[in-house]
């Protein structure tokens, strides 16, 4: 069994985000990047399946600055191969990325493709459904655990209100991982150093087709609200004012 797990670099939200001069994107020149947290879980789930079944895991990313380090860490975590796609694009939208992957992935012959359920730049989690559709494979998102069994994969999927489902998908399939069956493991500095020194990163070439999902015209910071109402006084007095405010806005009963 061959699992390909997608790794994406996303802006590090711990840093101060600036909008660029054109007002069409965040300023990516100074922003730090890190591995998308959901992709981190997808990688963990891939390695867990590998440990359970002896599968081969390939970490796959777009060749952008910083991807080598992420691919090396993936190998330190337990991936067997590291592959990057040279396509000349650094900032693909989900649809173009799905198309690129659907054209490139057949070379790797994956039985299972895992990716994080969403990224801060793919808020609606479109990559996995696009990819599944383009490749003509069963797909599911919001996955919180996956076990490979013969020619199928059993998954847990979370819905709202505390409901969950268990589904079985025939392989080959594409999964959007929300969280791995257990938290991503710790990789020691020693293993990381070994992976940095010893990992051979393979390269696949591809041409990204022009994105068809529109262009950003304007991007701006969220509008500032009209200020807050500060409630002061003794605890009971404050509680009373909060109650009145809630009633006044029709949020709680009142008479």
């Amino acid at each position, binding site marked *: 069994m061959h699992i390909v797990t997608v790794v994406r670099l996303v802006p590090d939200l711990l840093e101060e985000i600036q909008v660029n001069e054109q007002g069409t994107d965040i300023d990516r020149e100074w922003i730090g990047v890190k591995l998308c947290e959901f992709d981190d879980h997808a990688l963990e789930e891939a390695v867990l399946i590998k440990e359970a079944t002896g599968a081969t895991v390939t970490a796959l990313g777009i060749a952008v600055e910083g991807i080598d380090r992420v691919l090396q860490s993936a190998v330190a975590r337990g991936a067997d191969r590291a592959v990057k796609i040279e396509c000349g694009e650094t900032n693909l939208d989900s649809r173009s990325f799905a198309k690129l992957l659907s054209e490139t992935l057949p070379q790797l012959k994956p039985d299972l493709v895992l990716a994080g359920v969403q990224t801060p730049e793919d808020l609606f989690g479109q990559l996995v459904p696009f990819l599944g559709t383009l490749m003509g494979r069963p797909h599911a998102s919001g996955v919180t655990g996956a076990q490979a069994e013969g020619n199928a994969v059993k998954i847990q999927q979370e819905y709202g209100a505390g409901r969950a489902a268990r589904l079985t998908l025939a392989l080959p399939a594409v999964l959007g991982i929300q969280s791995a069956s257990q938290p991503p493991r710790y990789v020691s500095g*020693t293993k990381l150093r070994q992976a940095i020194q010893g990992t051979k990163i393979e390269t696949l070439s591809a041409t990204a087709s022009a994105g068809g999902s529109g262009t950003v015209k304007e991007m701006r910071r969220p509008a500032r609200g009209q200020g807050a109402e500060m409630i002061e006084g003794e605890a009971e007095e404050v509680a009373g004012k909060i109650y009145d405010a809630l009633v006044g806005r029709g949020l709680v009963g009142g008479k």
Partner: protein
Amino acid sequence: MAKPLVLAALMLLAFSFAGYRFFLRLRPMFSAPGIDRLDHIGERLWGLVPNVLLHRRLLNIRYSGILHAMIFSSFIVLFTAIVQAFGSGLFPGFSLAPVGGNSVIALLQDVFAVVIMIGVGMAFYNRYVIKPARFKGSNNKDATVILILVTGVVTSMLLEFSFHIAAGGDPSAPWRPLSSTIARLLEALGFEGESADRAAHVFYWVHVCVILSFLTYIPGSKHLHMFAAIPNIFLRNIGPKGQSRTPDPKAAHIGLSDVRALDWKGMLDLYSCTECGRCQAACPAYAAGLPLSPKILIMNMRDALIDETVTHTATAPAAVPAAGSNLEALVGSVISEQTLWSCTTCRACMEVCPLHIEHVPKIIDMRRHMVEEGHVTPGIQDAMASFQQYGNSFKKPPRMRAKWTSGLDFKIKDARKEEVDILWFVGDYASYDPRVQRITQTVARLLQKAGVDFGILYDAEQNSGNDVRRVGDEGLFQTLSEHNIEALGNCSFKRIMTTDPHSLNALRQEYPAQGAEYEVVHYTQLLLELMREGKIAKAANEKVQGTVTYHDPCYLGRYNNGFEPPRQIMAELGYKLHEMARCRENSFCCGAGGGRIWQDDTGVKERPSENRIREALALGDATIFAVACPKDLVMYTAAVQSLAVEDKIQVKDIAELFA
């Protein structure tokens, strides 16, 4: 004559049995990894004077130290009686008479028989009446058996001597006041001539048998320290205290996963432990209620080593297994993971151990194994991942490292671009923690005012890796240290200064082993120099109010001997210093070291920092709690707040005392 033959047979039996028991314990040492501990013979020998002859560490607890000194000195003197007993038994006509066996030695034997009995009495009293808390977890039965055996050896010896004197014609009688007195009693009871001579014979054999039983008992007892202690002290670590061992780069596995993979000196440590519990009494983790007692850790490792040996003799010859990845072999079963994560690496245990047992390196080595296996606590994982990504534990981008400088009205030199006299290695807490930034700015202003030519590395600085190494992530330490060494290598400076004792330790003691040596000073030393050169004005005495107590940071004091400069600064500024009982080498850790600061308080009954603040409050007059470490400032400020004693005591950095 049958006597020499019987004695020889008894001795052969006892020596074979004891020898076999010794062999079982020593055998793992023969196949253990090596460690270089035979250098600087002179220094090693010289160290035996304070540690063995003068009982310096033992006397830190006066009562126990004195009773040990009494028993120890008596053993040396009474060894002559053993030589005499076995010599005369094996070789008729053998006597110590030519060297004073019937005069001075006889007198000494009598005198020290009294000394040892008082010592043994004091030991019984200590164990059964005083019952110090440090004995909790020690093997009381073993200690009692030994005390009874010692009593047996001495009593049988005295009775043999006394009956001998009562039988008449003993030339040593005038030199044996105690034995002679007992002899007179025996004579009064009717033992004279032949009957006394027969009784003397009986007690001779009792004496010999008790000694031989003692010998065979020792290998399985904590009294193995009678043989292991002096070699263990001789083979102590005389290298830099703050330098961790670098694992063999060729080793397939980093860290200690099997007790048989311990180096031979580490094993000797285990056999040397007397279970005295001084380490336990000094341990901040133990005091906090965490599942770590350095004593029990050593005892458990020792028992595991012995069990392994015994099991293997019964079945197959002991083969040292390849140090594998089986976490259960040592870590996780013999020593729990929580135990290992409890340690603050404060070194208090090692400082008080009379046998110079090295607890902390063993803990670090077992942590290395856990880290390589990915077994870390969530807090540690979070911090280490932050170090891997950002070079600090605050999850802050490197660009923000020097943000604290924006609060100054002057610009600090960029040491990467300009030559400086003093390169200030700021450290994580001093750079990023808002509670400490204020102090960092104060230090900067003091240096600026004193006209010091100094600069910082700005975003090129990363965590020194001191605590990362103590957490057990050796590879991450290597990465961090290589980064800093490269950054420092591109700068031109005379000395490095830091306010952070943890950075001080790494730069001064760990980096030389990575091939980078610097002159590194703590800011308290630099400030003292500046005061003495008249470059910093001493605060006007009338401004100085209140009594100060000072907390020695572990990595400044115990690890780097920086006890004096902070005290001299306070004295020269005119502060009255009221020391806490636990000061200098015996300082009590704040609880943050060794990666503890990144872990939660699970299992903590009393935070070490709060215990410490209570100690300071108990002084009665101290209103300022002075610290010289950014982590201390954070820990003690929080402790003062959580105890709600802000109105009674204030935590202040030494730099703030200049205000």
